């Protein structure tokens, strides 16, 4: 506990680890259970029964829910600590400036004063460490270079695991743990069908009817726990590599949960699609990581930002760094500096230039000093230059600018994949194959928001070119997805496209510099989209897994709680004033309006969100109306529909309350007064201001660094207020049009079942547009034609080349060898052997003439023997007779 009070950041670490503990507990239990089932002994049988036996139990759900609820509690406690230590961060920044300054003093002061400076430096450093360690910590995780790496390499060869708690982290933690807890509770009800010992999957047909399998209740919560850990770890991470690892972990969880009913072809296809599409994005992510690793040498966010962004002041903490833009000098504070490295008189200088193809890296070891103490003298072009504090000022201090752009875009590509942005948005609608709580948690509230989160987290990394790409990608995504959502009939698909569209809003906001707006919308969207998904889940559960809205209708009296909470969600997403969506969405529109005002050539970035606000309202009301009002379209579904149990409705109510109130502040009508907005605003990095904060205003900065923020805050507030009115108005009008159309087209009276306008007619009037929307802008077909089929074709070519070309050459050479061998063999056989055989055959002929003496029959030998005996006897007797006679 004392460790926790000393280092309150550890609350969040604990909150992260808790789901992991739950996951490990569950998976160990599962392993043990399986092991116990495998062997047959009384002990094992008992163990098996104790661990759940053959029937899935609710224990896993309780463990996982408890863990995530505890996580929420930890996050809350940590957040309270964080709020009460709000001043620490400023203090740390000040101390760091001081330390930096003290270090630079060594060069200027005489040697006698060095011990004194050292002592001061030590005190300052100790204070920095004390304050930092409250919210920051890291441990060495891997050192690929090992103990043999040189000192220079050592910095770049160590991978850390660490955490850094800031406003963004805290907000994200609260949001993720709260929603995850509610969804866990909801899931206990929703997944109750999986408690059966044998679940029949009506969508999978086998030879003998439908597939029957064991219930996977425990497995679901196992995956959820792993996911929660991964997501929290992603948010917690203080470095890109840790983010990447968690990124992949949430990816695999998403894969596992989309494919939860993996026996269904559609589910397994969707899981694969999600996985592969994400891999495309991750390829970009990895490219970005490698560029950063190569040129910056660290993955730690803070260090990266410090390296690529210029400091606010010089190393003495007195003068703002300036450069000349359009003939006048502007401060360089917190911006990416494009400059060329020049060596003059043995001194290395950076010559600032807008056309410079190098981005300067501000290594902490580089001493910055503004030469000219007089700000009035602006004729000198070399107002500022760099001196290396240490003599080994090397090439890592600058990097090609285009590579920095590429790094930012690479990481953004990863976010595109994860957040389902155009053109990698195709997987998210298919991911609705997963159970609805999964859609709510992973594919609406948290994981898909991780892309947006990462863009926000890595915001200083993005150059202006990258940001405009982000903005346009977001704009295209939000419009395209909204148009597709209009024609969807599957209730979850509507919500899926809505999610894509809303994520596009966030991306757009980030791209146009609305860092706060983007994150704000991320939080509010997480609540109301989770609510909407859970409501849809409740509907689906109530209607026995019927997802087609064309079979629903008139469900309002049957499930009032669901309908009302869903109406709250619809109103929120539609931007009804005083609902949380209103604050965040209007803020985005206002932000884009502000950007367009500065850059009128990008007027689309304002037009698209405004129009889409109307479309959003239209399709959301369409969905609600089709589901809950009018005449029931399918008697069967209607008759069986019923309200869900309390475990499901209570989370809905809680989420509805949050959807309404999460963004409230006083006065209610002022979005800038929202508490959530303020909290996020405090976490906004300086670099946002540097890029979008209004250059003119920044030019009027005072010299003292402390003044910068106040000034910017004030100016932005002023700037935002001027634009909010217009943005609100336009969005409200668009939304109103959307509502009207929705009611005209889809509100049926209960008696007649007729609408004012017939959707069929509308469809027939715009057949091309309808086809375009219904076919999702032909993205799947396009990818199939552009990527899948060419890949297959190329593979076939390769195969054919392999078979005919390579094998042909090999076989041909083989045949040549055989032919040559034949000739050689002929010579060998008939000329060389011929001589030998001639000699042999002569010998053979002689031998065969001689061999006739021997018959080879033992019987004849016996006869010969007898004959010989007779002959001997005859001769003997003859001689004996002769002898007797003689």
């Amino acid at each position: 506990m004392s460790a926790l009070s000393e280092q309150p950041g550890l609350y969040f670490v604990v909150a992260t680890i808790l789901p992991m503990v739950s996951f490990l507990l569950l998976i160990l239990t599962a392993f043990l259970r399986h092991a116990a089932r495998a062997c047959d002994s009384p002990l094992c049988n008992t163990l098996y029964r104790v661990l759940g036996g053959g029937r899935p139990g609710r224990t896993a759900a309780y463990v996982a829910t408890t863990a995530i609820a505890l996580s929420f509690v930890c996050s809350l406690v940590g957040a309270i600590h964080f709020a009460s230590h709000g001043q620490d961060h400023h203090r740390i920044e000040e101390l760091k400036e001081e330390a930096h300054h003290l270090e630079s003093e060594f060069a200027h002061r005489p040697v006698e004063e060095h011990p004194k400076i050292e002592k001061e430096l030590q005190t300052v450093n100790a204070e920095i460490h004390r304050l930092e360690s409250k919210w920051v910590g890291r441990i060495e995780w891997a050192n690929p270079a090992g103990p043999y790496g040189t000192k220079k390499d050592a910095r770049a060869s160590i991978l850390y695991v660490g955490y850094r708690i800031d406003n963004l982290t805290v907000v994200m933690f609260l949001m993720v743990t709260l929603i995850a807890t509610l969804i866990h509770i909801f899931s206990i009800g929703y997944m109750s069908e999986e408690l059966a010992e044998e679940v029949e999957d009506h969508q999978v047909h086998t030879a003998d009817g439908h597939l029957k399998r064991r219930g996977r209740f425990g497995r679901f919560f196992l995956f959820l726990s792993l996911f929660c850990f991964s997501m929290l770890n992603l948010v917690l991470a203080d470095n890109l590599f840790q983010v990447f690892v968690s990124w992949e972990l949430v990816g695999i969880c998403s894969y596992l949960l989309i494919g939860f009913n993996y026996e269904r072809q559609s589910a397994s296809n969707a899981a694969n699609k999600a996985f592969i599409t994400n891999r495309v994005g991750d390829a970009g992510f990895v490219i970005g990581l490698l560029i950063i690793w190569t040129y910056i040498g660290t993955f730690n966010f803070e260090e990266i930002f410090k390296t690529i962004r210029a400091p606010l002041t010089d190393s003495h903490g007195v003068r703002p760094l300036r450069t000349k833009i359009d003939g006048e000098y502007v401060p360089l504070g917190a911006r990416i500096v494009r400059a060329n490295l020049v060596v003059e008189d043995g001194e290395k200088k950076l010559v600032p230039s807008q056309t410079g193809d190098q981005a300067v890296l501000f290594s902490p070891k580089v001493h910055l000093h503004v030469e000219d103490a007089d700000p009035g003298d602006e004729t000198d072009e070399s107002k500022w230059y760099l001196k290396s504090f240490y003599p080994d000022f090397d090439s890592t201090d600058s990097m090609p600018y285009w590579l920095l752009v590429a790094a930012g875009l690479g990481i953004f590509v990863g976010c595109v994949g994860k957040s389902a942005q155009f053109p990698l948005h195709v997987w998210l609608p298919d991911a609705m194959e997963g159970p609805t709580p999964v859609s709510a948690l992973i594919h609406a509230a948290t994981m898909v928001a991780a892309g947006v989160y990462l863009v926000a987290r890595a915001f200083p990394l993005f150059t202006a070119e990258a940001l405009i790409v982000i903005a346009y990608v977001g704009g295209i995504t939000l419009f395209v997805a909204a148009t597709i959502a209009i024609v969807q009939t599957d209730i979850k698909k509507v919500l899926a496209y809505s999610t894509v569209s809303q994520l596009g809003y966030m991306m757009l906001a980030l791209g146009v510099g609305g860092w706060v707006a983007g994150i704000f919308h991320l939080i509010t969207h997480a609540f109301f989209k989770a609510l909407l998904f859970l409501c849809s889940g409740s509907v689906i559960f109530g209607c026995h897994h019927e997802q087609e809205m064309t079979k629903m209708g008139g469900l309002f009296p049957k499930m009032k709680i669901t309908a009302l909470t869903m109406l709250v969600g619809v109103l929120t997403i539609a931007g009804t004033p005083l609902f949380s969506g209103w604050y965040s969405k209007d803020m985005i529109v206002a932000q884009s309006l502000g950007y367009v005002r500065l850059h009128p050539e990008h007027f689309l970035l304002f037009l698209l969100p405004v129009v889409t606000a109307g479309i959003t309202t239209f399709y959301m009301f369409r969905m609600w109306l089709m589901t809950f009002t009018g005449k029931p379209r399918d008697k069967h579904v209607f008759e069986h529909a019923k309200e869900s149990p309390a475990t499901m409705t209570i989370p809905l109510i809680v989420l509805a309350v949050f959807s309404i109130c999460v963004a409230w502040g006083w006065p209610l009508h002022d979005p800038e007064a929202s508490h959530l907005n303020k909290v996020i605003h405090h976490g906004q990095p300086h670099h946002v201001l540097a890029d979008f904060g209004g250059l003119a205003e920044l030019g009027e900065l005072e010299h003292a660094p402390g003044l910068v923020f106040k000034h910017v805050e004030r100016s932005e507030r002023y700037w935002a207020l001027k634009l909010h009115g217009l943005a609100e108005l336009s969005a409200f009008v668009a939304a109103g049009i959307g509502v009207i159309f929705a009611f005209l087209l889809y509100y049926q009276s209960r008696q007649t079942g007729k609408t004012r306008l017939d959707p069929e007619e509308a469809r027939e009037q715009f057949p091309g547009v309808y086809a375009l929307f219904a076919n999702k802008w032909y993205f799947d077909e396009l990818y199939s034609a552009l990527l899948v089929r060419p890949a297959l074709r190329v593979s076939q070519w390769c195969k054919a080349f392999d078979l005919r070309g390579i094998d042909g050459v090999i076989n041909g050479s083989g045949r040549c060898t055989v032919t040559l061998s034949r000739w050689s063999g002929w010579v060998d056989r008939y000329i060389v052997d011929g001589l030998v055989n001639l000699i042999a055959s002569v010998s053979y002929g002689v031998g065969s003439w001689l061999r006739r003496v021997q018959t080879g029959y033992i019987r004849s030998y016996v006869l010969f023997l007898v004959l010989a005996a007779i002959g001997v006897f005859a001769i003997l007797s003859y001689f004996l007779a002769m002898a007797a006679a003689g």
Partner: protein
Amino acid sequence: MSTNELQAILFYLVAAITALCAIGVVVTQHIVRAATWLLFTLAGTAGVFFLLGADFVAAIQILVYVGGTLVLVVFGVMLTAQSPFISLRASAAEWAIGTVVGFLLFGMLAVSLYSANWNFPEPGQTASPKNSMNSVVLGESLLGFEEATPAANMTGFPPGAAPPSRKAVAYLLPFEIVSVHLLVVLIGAAYLARARRRRQATST
């Protein structure tokens, strides 16, 4: 009818059976029948041994030849019994030559037997069952004893009896050699006859 006459009658009877069956062995083309004639030939030979007072040899002849060797031979016949081999015939020319040679050989032997002058001290006792060679004597000579009391208990000499004297020439060593030989033969036969993969048959 004197004992000699009876003896002669028995001899001629047994000898005739033996000789005829021996000729039958040669003449028959059927291998199993040849084995049958051989059985009677061997039995007849055993009968001749009985007539010669060699009961033990006769019994061994029956035991070993009839009960053992001949059964073994028949086993061989059965194991290789395929219709073409049951009766393999030699050619007529071979038969002619064989017959001529056989008569020549027999004639030669008979002539030499009849012309031989056997100088035995005294023709031994007439062969009769009563005077059959005692198997004890055979056993003693095999072991190398000249004389032994044909007393009942051969295992362990009775306390009072004098141990028999040694004979100069004994057949103990040949006996041992034969027994070792038999063992070698057993092992060799087992080795030779063990089942092996058949090679492709040559033309028969």
